[in-house]
């Protein structure tokens, strides 16, 4: 068959291939930004991520998840996040709203909105923005299905973001999945929000069900129930709940005051 030396080399190569096939996403990616065991493992910059939600009415949740990730990538030398949207989808999907960003905890001054006329311009703007050294992340909000956004386009975006170090987050809608070169693919579903202190009837801080459909993060976990605080994501998984007893608001609290005498408080 061959010399033992040859067989050894073949085996080593097979191992390498298997390794790459097992986690193709991280073959060219960097380590995690935050993997201290307690928090949600946030991917580092330089990754092409697809954030899928099943329906367009979940656009708020998807944007929240993407901006939550983008916020952790902001540094003094990378002070900007670029948001791309097709101009004709603004009414259906809504535009990022400054005061809303503030109350979410994202600095509106860091967000540059770019409204493009068609998919060609969107891809051009995305590539330009990724290549810029001052951009931490590019969030592209694409409601429809587009022929131009194929494997080649995603491969280009992926390579560019890997080489430039800025993350690219593609917000996609629907249940269909096409071949893409994204390093990570998320499926985001809004979850029932956290309870607000002193008011069991009111919606509280946002929560997401995040499912990692493609790619591997550090501990091979693929499902999370995520909560949101002003410090970032926290895991609200049933298994991990014991780790964060203090973060949950007390439920057996006082009786809610009449609605008219209440002003909305920060979640």
């Amino acid at each position, binding site marked *: 068959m061959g010399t033992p030396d040859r067989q050894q080399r073949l085996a080593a190569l097979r191992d390498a291939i298997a390794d790459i096939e097992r986690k193709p996403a991280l073959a060219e990616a960097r380590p995690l930004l935050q993997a201290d065991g307690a928090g949600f493992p946030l991917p580092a910059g330089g990754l092409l991520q697809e954030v899928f939600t099943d329906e367009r009415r979940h656009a708020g949740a998807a944007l929240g998840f993407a901006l939550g990730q983008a916020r952790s990538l902001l540094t003094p030398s990378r002070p900007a996040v670029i948001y791309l949207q097709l101009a004709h989808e603004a009414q259906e999907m809504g*535009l990022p709203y400054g005061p*809303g960003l503030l109350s979410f905890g994202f600095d509106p001054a860091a*967000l*540059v909105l770019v409204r493009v*006329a068609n998919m060609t311009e969107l891809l051009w703007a995305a590539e330009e*923005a990724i290549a810029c050294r001052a951009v931490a992340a590019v969030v592209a909000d694409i409601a429809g299905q587009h022929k131009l956004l194929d494997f080649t386009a995603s491969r280009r975006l992926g390579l560019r973001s890997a080489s430039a170090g800025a993350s690219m987050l593609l917000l996609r809608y629907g249940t269909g999945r096409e071949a893409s070169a994204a390093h990570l693919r998320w499926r985001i579903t*809004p979850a029932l929000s956290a309870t607000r202190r002193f008011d069991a009837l009111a919606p509280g801080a*946002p929560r997401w069900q995040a499912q990692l459909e493609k790619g591997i993060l550090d501990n091979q976990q693929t499902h999370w129930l995520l909560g949101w605080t002003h410090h970032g994501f926290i895991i609200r998984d049933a298994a991990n709940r014991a780790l964060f007893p203090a973060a949950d608001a007390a439920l057996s609290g006082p009786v809610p005051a009449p609605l008219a005498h209440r002003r909305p408080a920060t979640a």
Partner: protein
Amino acid sequence: MLYERIKGGLRLAAMNPQAAQAGLRLGQNLADARAMLPEMTAREIDRPLLTAAFADFADWHSNASPLVAVLGDVSAFGDLVLDITGVAHLFGGEHAMLRTLLARLRALGYSVAGAIAPTIGAAWAVSHFARSQVVADTDLAQVLDALPVGALRLTPEQIAGLTQMGLTTLAPLRPRERKPLQARFGLSLLTRLDQAYGMLEERLTPRLPLAERYAERRFPDPIGLLDDVLMTTRDLAIQLGLRLEAEGLGAQAFHLFLYRVDHKVMTLSVNSARPSRDPDHIAKLFSHRAERLAGEYDAGFGIDMIRLAVSSVDKLDGTQLGAFATPDGTDDLAQLQDRMSSRLGAMAVLRTQFVATHIPERAARLVPAMVHAAGPKTEPGPDRVRPLRLLPVPEPIAINAEVPDGLPASMIWRRISYRITRASGPERLGAEWWRSGQRLQLVPPEPPRPAKPGETPRPPPHVPRLERFNPSAVTRDYYIAEDAMGRRFWIFREGLYHPDASPVWYLHGLFA
């Protein structure tokens, strides 16, 4: 032969020399002219076309002198005026310049008359009423004196009046008493007279903004390819950048003028968010801008001159690269915004600006990133819960509430019904009465007293009819509603509950 409709009649507006020899004159009735010269061809004059043609001509002539204007008020079609101060030597003197300019227009088949004179009025007079020539400062009065009074850019009535007085040339007009002339013909006669003789300054309003700093390149053979144009632009940007650097300046607006051989000028302008003189950046902006107009670019028969001019010049000191400086990326970001603005349009690249108001859609304004200035912080307090996405136009929804003024129980939005499990609100936002077109009437007028017997009833005081402002009509109550799946919406009710009418509900935003 061209005619025009004036006061209901068809009158001659322009003619060729043959017609003039046959005895026709301008302003003549078209029917009379036809009778005198049956074989002539007459067409109606197309004023907008002529105006556009003259504008093109004027732009194109800015390759001879940067200050070009069209005088449209006196002559039938307009006259081209060039300020050639400090330009003539480029053509080898004034005589040569006049010859060159006239010859290149005649070569195109136009009949042209031109003159170079110390004043605009004199140049007009000489070009219209004498042969084409250069009038020097010293013999200005002598040349003008021999010309008829019509050479002063006067109205037909003024010319007729002067002719009646026996004043046919300018020579006897000049020494006459000015007061009676003004009384009879108005101030404009004296103004025109003084302007022609140089007693009164006349300014021309140039068609193109005057650019003090520009670089240009002429081509012996016309070029056509867009790539060549862009490469030349880069070269010009390098030239211009060196000059700006020597002066310690940078510019925010860059204009590229492409002079086509067929007398058209194409203009491309790009802007930069902060003053710049970086040739690479400028060239990139133009190439992005050019990509956007790929279909409209038409070099015609070629381009024989390119000029790159800058405006909005501002001080820009040289930057020093520090050994310990940390790059903060603002320059990169500004350049990225410039590139995107030049390709996608300035209104496509936006930033949020806060406005001190509590009306949600007005509280945040999207302004072009290029003009965005970090003004005073008018950010709303973070204690207000606002949605992450706001719909530009609120969408009407159908709401069921258990009790009026209670929390909504279910809603129908985009033909899908949602069961609302948790909600908070209302957050009541009143209308901004001070912005309303209606005035708030604070004090109702006194009712007129009944007249006492023996006293004439006084008329009631005049009260302007003002609609009473109705604050409840536009008050909104905002609710945060969450459905059973965890979707969170920002909905509001416009108006208050009223026995007669039910208020309308809208969905305004989506929460994370």
